[in-house]
């Protein structure tokens, strides 16, 4: 299955699911961890951050893919950074127009999407070499994978740290929230827990696959 990575990839189901599970930007590639930890103290913030990042990933991916034949190799990184910064500024103003509370909660981290390595990484590694449709589908997959990861953290941290989910109280007034989970150390611990969980699942899967193989060989 080894293929020349410089050739454009055909559009298939894998283009979309790559970012969702196999190369999940957070759980597998460990990229863009700053927003993953910084704004996931509530599920709502996590969702908004995920949507904003997906928007930037999608639109910058499409534009980079459209312009891929026009941008000379020597200035490509500079061009990508300008394109990404443009869309981040747009997302920034859009969030401010939609909800000021949300904007205040996310703070400077919306603008820090610019420095999120996933976006520049996708522009450079995928969008600049592939068709517009592929870039769109792949960006959508990556964005959803990123949003999924943010929600994984946001939901756990909000339930344990404030006893609520999307602002709705879950356990009634008697619940004593574990404030540590909305504070910075909680972010590290919850992410570590998810990584550990996925590592166990992976190991289990590959283990059973080897066993099946052995049974097949024996037969």
């Amino acid at each position: 299955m080894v293929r020349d990575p410089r050739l454009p990839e055909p559009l298939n189901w894998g283009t979309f699911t790559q970012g969702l599970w196999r190369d999940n930007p957070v759980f597998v590639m460990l990229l863009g961890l700053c927003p993953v930890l910084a704004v996931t103290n509530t599920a709502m913030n996590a969702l908004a951050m995920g949507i904003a990042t997906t928007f930037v990933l999608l639109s910058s991916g499409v534009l980079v893919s459209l312009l891929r034949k026009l941008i000379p190799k020597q200035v490509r990184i500079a061009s990508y950074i300008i394109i990404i910064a443009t869309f981040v500024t747009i997302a920034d103003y859009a969030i401010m127009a939609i909800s000021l509370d949300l904007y205040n909660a996310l703070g400077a981290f919306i603008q820090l999407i610019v420095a999120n390595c996933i976006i520049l990484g996708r522009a450079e590694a995928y969008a600049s070499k592939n068709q517009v449709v592929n870039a769109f589908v792949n960006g959508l997959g990556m964005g959803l994978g990123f949003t999924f990861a943010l929600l994984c953290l946001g939901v756990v941290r909000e339930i344990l740290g404030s006893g609520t989910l999307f602002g709705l109280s879950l356990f009634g007034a008697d619940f004593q929230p574990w404030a540590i989970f909305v504070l910075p150390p909680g972010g590290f611990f919850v992410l570590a827990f998810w990584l550990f969980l996925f590592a166990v699942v992976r190991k289990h899967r590959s283990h059973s696959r080897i066993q099946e193989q052995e049974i097949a060989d024996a037969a």
Partner: protein
Amino acid sequence: MQPDSLTFIFLNAFIINNFVLAMFLGLCPFLGVSGKIKTAWNMGLAVIFVMLVSSNCAYFINKLLVRYELEFLRLICYIAVIASAVQLVEMAVKRFSPALFRTLGIFLPLITTNCAILGLALFQTNRNYNFTQSLAFSIGAGAGFTLALILMAGLREKLELADVPDVSMGAALSLTLAGLLSLAFMGFAGLGG
């Protein structure tokens, strides 16, 4: 301690709200380059240096943008200027101090994509720091980054000898360690009072 004083701003960025452990900025190099104390130290020096330069640049650019009411171009200008500042610093260091370049050299390009640098510029603008306050803030932030990096590297060097289950090796373990460090740093919150 007055929240406006230079000492508070420095201590705040250095340990109370440590850039890496409390604000989660610059996590990529934190997890990537914290294998050995020596490398961590060099990386930290390079970051302090670049932070000083880019914080100064950001301060003057912001003055200019506010004057002509072009605040909506702030982000684009900051990222462009930081990227070129890092390039210029790299060239200048190479030209005038080859010894320093050998120490910092390979780390400089890595820094461009470090969100701690852009974060520093954005935070100092949001908080309306004046010139000296920005200076104290950038030194504090750089020193805080270096401190976190070195502590982490020290822990990881010891960890190589530890016997842990192989599923928890790698990132999960590093993040748990970072969480413990972050927990310890929360104790400094009392300094603010």
